[in-house]
């Protein structure tokens, strides 16, 4: 215990120092992300002073890009479980050394989720009211607070424990992390289910008030999340030489294909129910897919999402995707396609028209977009740092015994820790 108190801060400090070491590509990447993140911070500072009037939100469309990104990222966080289940339940060997990158991605995705929520709050200075009067279990939002923070803690513990053991050259003690891994599996499902219930629990919004929202969320998350991991792993391999086997990519590809297929099926079910019955409740769906009275801001978005997802599904189901660049293109297509489907395609249309029939469209402002890109850049920044320090630790290059110079000059020819 005494050792831990002395050694742990040293470990954190060394990781911090290490995050500043890299080649020019690493520096360029980190510099670019920092600049975008700072533009986001600047935009947020403006919003903090002037209020949410700096966004395109209105009383009619009261949630927009922030909540859309939040929803998407909850899915990315939950998707880590698609690496965890094969490894810990089915003892998949290929993914064994990669599962940590999924868990780190979950940590970062949850941090980004929390940032998006903070950005969306009108009174972030009163966030502590959550602790003082927590409307649990009545408000689903309080469930989401517990689910997200619990998932963050679980993954921080699992990743932190495994990495710290590697740093100390110890074999991890199973009872300290295996139970948490299994709790995290169930918890991952719960975070996205609870997030879906935020929407589907509202009788005022027929577009959301559908039992298929939670399954759809999970399916789209288990497609987009592992697709992001496929791309990330390739970048990690290319930039650090960390071994990523072809079989691992193939396993993930299989998961993505099935999840995307299920997602398209559920979307189809939703579309059928909305349009075949044609009740007054399908007015938001009509707005989304075809526009209403000449208002059609979302129509190009949803059809591009469908086109992208269809392309991805066709590519994955045919031998085309044996070519790596086609697989990657399919991954990019579904990451973007599902982002649109969940954001512009699911959050915004529920507000159009308003519950009393007023049709007001939503167009995000530049300031709002800058805040969003800033949070994304910040998330990528943390993820890069986490991967960058994790790899040497897993390689046994940075351990408790490593002699430590205070003044290292990075070897400029080698590359390190660059992620997409």
């Amino acid at each position, binding site marked *: 215990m005494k050792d831990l108190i002395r050694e742990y801060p040293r470990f954190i400090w060394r990781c911090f120092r290490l995050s500043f*070491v890299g*080649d020019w590509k690493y520096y360029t990447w980190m510099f670019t992300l*920092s*600049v975008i993140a*700072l*533009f986001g*911070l*600047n935009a947020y*500072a*403006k919003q*903090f*002073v002037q*209020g*949410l*009037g700096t966004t395109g*939100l209105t*009383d009619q469309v*009261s*949630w927009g890009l922030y909540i859309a990104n939040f929803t998407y990222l909850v899915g990315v966080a939950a998707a880590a479980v698609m690496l965890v289940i094969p490894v810990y339940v089915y003892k998949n060997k290929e993914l064994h050394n990669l599962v940590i990158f999924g868990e780190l991605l979950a940590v970062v995705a949850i941090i980004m989720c929390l940032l998006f929520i903070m950005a*969306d*709050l*009108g*009174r*972030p*200075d*009163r*966030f502590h*009211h959550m602790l*003082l009067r927590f*409307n649990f279990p009545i*408000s689903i*939002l309080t469930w989401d607070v517990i689910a997200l923070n619990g998932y963050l803690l679980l993954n921080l513990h699992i990743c932190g424990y495994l990495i710290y053991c590697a740093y100390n050259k110890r074999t991890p003690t199973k009872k300290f992390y295996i139970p948490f891994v299994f709790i995290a599996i169930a918890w991952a499902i719960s975070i996205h289910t609870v997030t879906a219930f*935020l929407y589907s629990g*509202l009788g*005022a919004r027929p577009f959301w008030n559908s039992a298929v929202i939670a399954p759809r969320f999970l399916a789209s998350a288990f497609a987009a999340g592992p697709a992001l991991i496929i791309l990330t792993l390739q970048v990690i391999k290319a930039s*650090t*030489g960390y071994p990523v086997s072809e079989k691992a990519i193939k396993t993930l590809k299989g998961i993505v294909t099935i999840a995307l297929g299920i997602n398209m099926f559920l979307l189809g079910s939703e579309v059928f129910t909305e349009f075949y019955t044609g009740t007054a409740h399908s007015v938001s769906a009509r707005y989304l897919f075809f526009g209403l009275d000449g208002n059609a801001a979302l129509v190009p978005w949803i059809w591009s999402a469908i086109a992208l997802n269809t392309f991805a599904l066709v590519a994955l189901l045919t031998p085309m995707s044996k070519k790596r660049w086609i697989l990657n293109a399919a991954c990019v297509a579904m990451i973007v396609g599902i982002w649109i489907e969940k954001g512009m395609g699911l959050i915004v249309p529920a*507000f159009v028209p*308003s*519950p*009393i*029939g*007023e049709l007001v469209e939503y167009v995000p402002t530049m300031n709002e977009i800058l805040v969003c890109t800033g949070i994304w850049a910040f998330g990528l920044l943390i993820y890069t740092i986490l991967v960058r320090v994790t790899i*040497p630790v897993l*390689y046994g290059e*940075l351990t408790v015994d490593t*002699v*430590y*110079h*205070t*003044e*290292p*000059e*990075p*070897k*400029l*020819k*080698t590359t*390190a*820790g660059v992620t997409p």
Partner: protein
Amino acid sequence: MKLPIMNNQEPGEQDGCGCGTRSYTTRPGMTRRSFLRRGTAATGAVAAIAASLSPLRELTDTDDFSVAKFIQKHYKEMDGKEMASALTRISNEVEKRYDVRPNIRDIKPMDGVEFVYALNLTRCIGCRKCVHACVEENNQSRSPEIQYIRVLEMPRGTTDIEQGNHHYDRPTVPDEDHYYMPIQCHQCANPPCVKVCPVEATWQEPDGITVIDYDWCIGCRYCEAACPYWARRFNFTKPEIPKEKINPNMSYLSNRPRQKGVMEKCHFCLHRTREGKMPACLEVCPTGARKFGNVLDPESDVRKILETKRVFVLKADVGTLPRFFYYFDERDPINEKVPTGVPMEGES
């Protein structure tokens, strides 16, 4: 392939920056050059963060952030003394900003009272006088103007609000081919907005009015998404009210000035109605279309209306059990003598 970490360079190896090997083989500490470089980078980073945060300098309004506000308790947790000091603080803020000393109180619900509203669609002529009387009474922001009441111009032959026109504009009302349907907070007995609030900043009072503690709301707008009647409004910017327009008769849970970033909504003018007066929207109505009162009182107008008229609520299917009822007169509405040619008021 080997990853670079801090100590992986062999002595004598070129470091690629042209400064030779001396810097870290003979002296593991900081060199002047790296000190300068690192210092410049750190300074640059701090400067960049400071520059990004520079809009915060415009935060001059001390009323928005104060210790007293930060530690103020939830409405239901404040005792008499704490409420008194909160009311004093609010009075001071109002006086400072609007040069008016308000008469602000915390008015409690009366026993044995449950308020309901009944609106006669046969009589409403869509003049929007209620919309503006409400704004005057309740100290809503004028820029941008926040309104609690939305009047729909409905084509005859339907009660489908999707077909209503929100932005009708005519020299006079009513229009012969239309009838008019004002919508405001329905003060539901099963309010979805209260259910979803994560911090209990909004709740239903014993007299049936759903209120908001403006000092407790965190501005997540979940209630706004949950309301089937689009009754809630959010302060997207700092509310602006001209000094001469302030209504100094205020209460904590109703019409005291709101802050940026919080929700607000109709509260049945509780600072008036809990003292036996009628809501502002009712008093201004030129046709008597609006009826308000205690449904528990068998002699009240609203009770008689509920017992005798053809009453309906909006969206009964969402199960919210509104306390806001619409009805048509029993008499033949086509030959009904209602005022005609009344000058209407604009949207804003």
